């Protein structure tokens, strides 16, 4: 279906046939130095980029997404790496693939284009953003993580384990940022480019089900318990409502295959996700 849509798109807009298409992989919460191997896995990245006319036109972002989304080490770093990629490889048509909080950092750039003169240059090259399991409305688990580390002394609650990125993903915090700084959520103006969500709806961690092992069985064990903190439709870290909370729903995992995509599987080569993303380039 995606391939069909893509073909129709190219037929309707022949200018894209002349475009130099590239793809960027934007990781989620955490400070990455080798996101290709540590976050996405080489198998996922290499499978997706085969959909490019020039399979070298890809970049894997490595930034410090422990910071608030607007921080120079977060959105600033992302903008720097995206613009270098665009300029160095003469990219005229960029597809951005984000995972989890990476969707928020990308949405910060799209929603606040005048904060940095690089942002409009990047936005003008973006075809669309494919947001895998985006934490657009935050997650109750970020509230739980923050509150679980609150010291009762005066300034102590700042010293807890939760990073700024985790604090930012508390539900009430994201509600504030969505109402006041970010676009694309219900009742707010749409973003300047499409923001298409892939939603993971469940976690399987049965030791007798081979599908539970894709992306790492032990990761799914922890996600299955934390899913209890969430709605029945969730990927172990995010409610489906959060993943579908900004932009448009591209598809739910169960529309892709019979297997749900847990929060860790939605960044890995699991159940044909890589093929759908490849065919979308």
């Amino acid at each position, binding site marked *: 279906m995606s391939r069909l*849509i893509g073909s129709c*798109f190219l037929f309707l807009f022949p200018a894209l046939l002349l475009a130099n298409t590239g793809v960027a992989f934007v990781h989620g919460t955490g400070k990455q130095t080798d996101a290709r191997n540590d976050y996405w896995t080489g198998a996922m990245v290499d499978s997706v980029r085969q959909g490019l006319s020039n399979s070298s036109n890809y970049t894997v972002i490595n930034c410090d997404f422990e910071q*608030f989304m607007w921080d120079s080490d977060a959105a600033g770093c992302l*903008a720097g790496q995206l613009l270098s990629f665009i300029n160095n490889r003469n990219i005229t048509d960029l597809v951005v693939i984000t995972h989890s909080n990476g969707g928020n950092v990308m949405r910060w750039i799209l929603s606040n284009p*005048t*904060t940095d*003169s690089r*942002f*409009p240059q990047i936005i*003008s090259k973006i075809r669309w953003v494919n947001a895998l399991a985006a934490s657009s409305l935050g997650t109750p*688990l970020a*509230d*739980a*993580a923050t*509150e*679980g*580390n*609150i*010291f009762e002394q*005066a*300034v*102590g*609650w*700042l*010293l807890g*384990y*939760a*990073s*700024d990125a*985790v604090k*930012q993903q508390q*539900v*009430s*915090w994201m*509600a*504030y940022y969505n109402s*006041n*700084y970010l676009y694309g959520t219900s*009742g*707010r*103006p*749409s973003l*300047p*480019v*499409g923001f*298409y969500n892939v939603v993971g709806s469940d976690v399987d961690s049965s030791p007798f089900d081979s599908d539970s092992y894709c992306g790492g069985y*032990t*990761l*799914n*064990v*922890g*996600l299955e*318990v*934390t899913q*209890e903190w969430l709605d029945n439709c969730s990927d*172990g*870290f995010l409610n489906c409502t959060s993943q579908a909370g900004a932009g448009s729903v*591209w598809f739910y995992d169960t529309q892709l295959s019979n297997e749900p995509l847990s*929060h*860790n599987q939605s960044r890995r080569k699991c159940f044909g996700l890589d093929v759908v993303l490849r065919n979308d380039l």
Partner: protein
Amino acid sequence: MKSQPFQNLVRWSTSLLLTAGLLTAGEDHNLLPPNQGDVAATAVTRQTWKAAPALPPTAREKVHFSWPLAADESIDTQQPSHQTRSKSYRMLVESADFEKGIALPLETSRPLIKISPQFSADQLPGNYAVQPQDLMLVNKSGQVFRGAAGLDQLAAAEDLQRAHKNHFSPATTIFKLANAVGHQSVYLFAENLDQGEPRRYVIQVFEKHAQIALGLQSNSDTYFAGEDILVNTTWISELGKVETQSMSGALIAPDGRRFDLNFDRGLQSARVRLPQTLGAAAGLWRVEVQAVGRDGDTLIRRDAATAIAVGEAGARFSGDVVVARDGDLLVADLGIETAGPGRYEARAVLFGTDAEGGMVPLAVAHVADLLDQGKQRLDLQFELPAATDAGAPYELRDLRLIHQNAGKLLHRQGVGLRFDPDQP
């Protein structure tokens, strides 16, 4: 079906037109007065915190940006503050309490329990985890459940770290009580806990299947220093009226300062006055409430928290607007009054009148620039969609002013201006 915006291709050329002064002279207008729910400063005040964060070179140029909106987009310019609904509570305990037994009031069975040892940044948690296999639970009938016998699902500390290492602190464990353990009064014990030195733990209880939640909402999501915050709480119950036994809470600044909430006699609303002086720490302020209620013979505990933004009125719209139109470009040049230098941004959504007389969205525009102290201007440049039958009269909705390098919203107005550039 996915769609691609092509308007980016024309954005830069129109900016050049404007720069070259090809627009016709505009008409003077005044902003409408703010309505209830809008955020607006009556006067500007110099910031009390010492220095704005240094701006990178890429944030020093004047930048315009605009994109079209579909006429059928539903845009709500009245964004209420977030209402939190909580079915959870937390308690701070000492490691020795696990030997004596910790009473957990539960409205329903099958709660999820999370235990996190407390440690500061320079400490390692070591082997502080309260592992699920070391638990003992005693229910209200005196029945004892040891280890996994009382648990339905569990995650040891290492399971959580593998799945959530960026989200949960080391040595955190989570488990779900089995249905057989029941509810109302359950005592939690832990064996094999290192009691070599006293330590503190946060226990969080989440009653997913509860029918009673605590609601918490502030009367706005954005305030200026020195203003009063009104906080409202409510029991959201599917069972009937919950009798409030206690309600307390605090407002906590990003720099850690705490301000107690003073609840009224009905224990539903509280007011607190914001300080005149703000700290430089980034992030939102936290409003947190701890409530105890009773439903018959069942004790209900709930904690709730929400977030608000607090800023200083470092700038405001002075009220005068010059509007001009040239072809597909509509410019609203806004007067700004600033208390100090900084990078300021104006943004708004342009609405037009369609053939049926209804107001429909046309475009978003942003502009930001470094401005000195005093009277300044920011010009919003809207690129009108080529394929639209909507026109004058127009409205500037969702009009906002932002101090970018302070990260503060200074003005938010549902409808800022109604105008017809062709009708002086």
